[in-house]
């Protein structure tokens, strides 16, 4: 067999950061500043005093959120099921809520949108996201992966919130839960460490 002359790496990763900080070092997504608006007008109003965005940014973001809403809002096969997730009066038929489609598929009404700075033009990301009511009186995104207490205000959040949600158009209506269980790994090994 042939062997390289030098037997060791030229560089190595030198440190261990630990589970918490390793996530921060890159496992966790970067943080971006995001603002939520209940409707287009409140965004435009805010843009007058803002150096970061213009009214046309608001228009573009709102249009994109609406597009994602049509493509990706959770679909339910009954109004009842939809209202169980989003609260009474927060749902409509696909025909009503998305301006076209089925009268027997139900989806939540868009109750605002989340606008992320610097997220436009990145593959797999959208600069804005539709917001929906949740049962707790707060708001959630299309994939249901995060909740917000309000649909107005600003804060820092993970850039993953701006990932384009998986499309639900033409697919079977979603069942209410996204995560059906946790903790199904690790039980057989007891509490010892596993390496050897």
């Amino acid at each position, binding site marked *: *067999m042939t*062997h*390289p002359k*030098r*037997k*060791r*790496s*030229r*560089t*190595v*990763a*030198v*440190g*261990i*950061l*630990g*589970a918490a900080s*390793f*996530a921060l070092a*890159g*496992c966790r997504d970067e943080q971006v500043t995001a603002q939520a608006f209940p409707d287009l007008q409140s965004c435009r109003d805010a843009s007058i005093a803002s150096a970061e965005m213009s009214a046309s940014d608001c228009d573009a973001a709102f249009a994109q959120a609406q597009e994602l809403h049509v493509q990706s809002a959770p679909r339910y096969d009954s109004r009842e099921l939809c209202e169980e997730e989003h609260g009474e009066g927060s749902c409509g038929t696909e025909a009503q809520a998305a301006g076209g489609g089925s009268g027997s598929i139900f989806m939540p009404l868009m109750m605002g949108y989340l606008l992320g700075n610097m997220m436009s033009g990145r593959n797999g990301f959208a600069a804005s996201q539709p917001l929906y009511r949740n049962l707790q009186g707060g708001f959630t995104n299309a994939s249901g*992966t995060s909740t917000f207490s309000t649909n107005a205000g600003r804060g820092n959040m993970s850039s*993953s919130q701006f990932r384009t949600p998986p499309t639900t158009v033409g697919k079977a209506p*979603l*069942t209410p*839960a*996204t*995560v*059906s*269980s*946790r*903790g*199904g*790994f*690790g*039980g*057989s*090994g*007891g*509490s*010892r*460490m*596993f*390496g*050897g």
Partner: protein
Amino acid sequence: MEKITLPERPGWRAQAEELGFTFADMHGEPYWDETSAYRFTLDEVETMIEDPATELHAMCREAAARIVESEELMARLAIPEAHRDLVRDSWRRGDPELYGRFDLAHDGQGPAKLLEYNADTPTSLYESASYQWLWLEGQLELGVLHAGDDQFNGIHEALVARFAELFAEDEQLHFTAVAGAPEDYATVEMLGWAAREAGMGAHYCDLDKIGLSDEGQFVDDESRVIGTLFKLYPWEDLLRDPYADHVAPSGVRMLEPGWKALLSNKGLLPVLWQMFEGHPNLLPSFFEDDADMDAPGMDRVVRKPLFSREGSSITIRENGAVTEASPDDSYAHHPHILQAYHPLPVMDGFRPVVGAWIVGQSCVGMGLREDRSRITQDLSRFKPHFIRG
């Protein structure tokens, strides 16, 4: 191979701590011990460790190919019946392997002997790939080692290359280990660094926080779908977990692949002996229930459970009498194999075991651990090595 006393690098403990190598001392004993180091010649490394270990991995792949075709062998290796297809399919699909570590008895005189293959969840990757390397570079700089001294340690570069070979750039990989185990975690983080260097995204999630989506895909602690999962958690345990039924339907790509359950299993050793009897790097090995005790070398045997880590539940029997037993018998209820006893060399009161690292299908580095006891356990010490001559 010789053991040489060397001055320790001044301030290495503070450096280790700063780097997050928090287990350099364990249980009040040194784990990383640089008061001495093992010296090898280049020829010894290449002809007695590197090439034999690469060949052993190829033999193990042949053994895997045989085992998946045999219900009887699958049963002897205690692969749960419900999941034999998972193991079989992973082999037939050619699911690629990432890494493994052979433990070899090597004295520099005769051929190195395979003690076992940590093919599924090998740890001590940080010590081997990274801290050992820092030690060498530091000692070269201090003049303790000489210009031209080297180390058999291409592990990190090989891992980066392997990730690049297996995954597209920007692919998102998940890594998991049991929570609160710093030694296990260190190995996982090393792999995460290598994956990132290769252009992938690396995400860590504690093992018990993994969930299942309503569409049957695994998700991490932030409910993000897991496409590829590196798990520092043995297949033999995973296949007995509630989520085992969901692995195949989920479509998740597993590292190590399911067929590694056949190689990290001590039942591999008798299968290798059946297939390659007399191979210079193998010791006679048998399943306990049909052991040929009259075979040469079987007057002194090591009895090992199919599944065991850190030297647990192992006994040494000489002429029928148990002469040494490891205190932890947590694996004792498993079936056992018998392997001819091969003494480890004794160097300055300690017995070294050579860990030969495989990345992909080639041996790319080594790390040594030594123990006072004849059974290497979790109180053993990690020893650096260098190549001169």
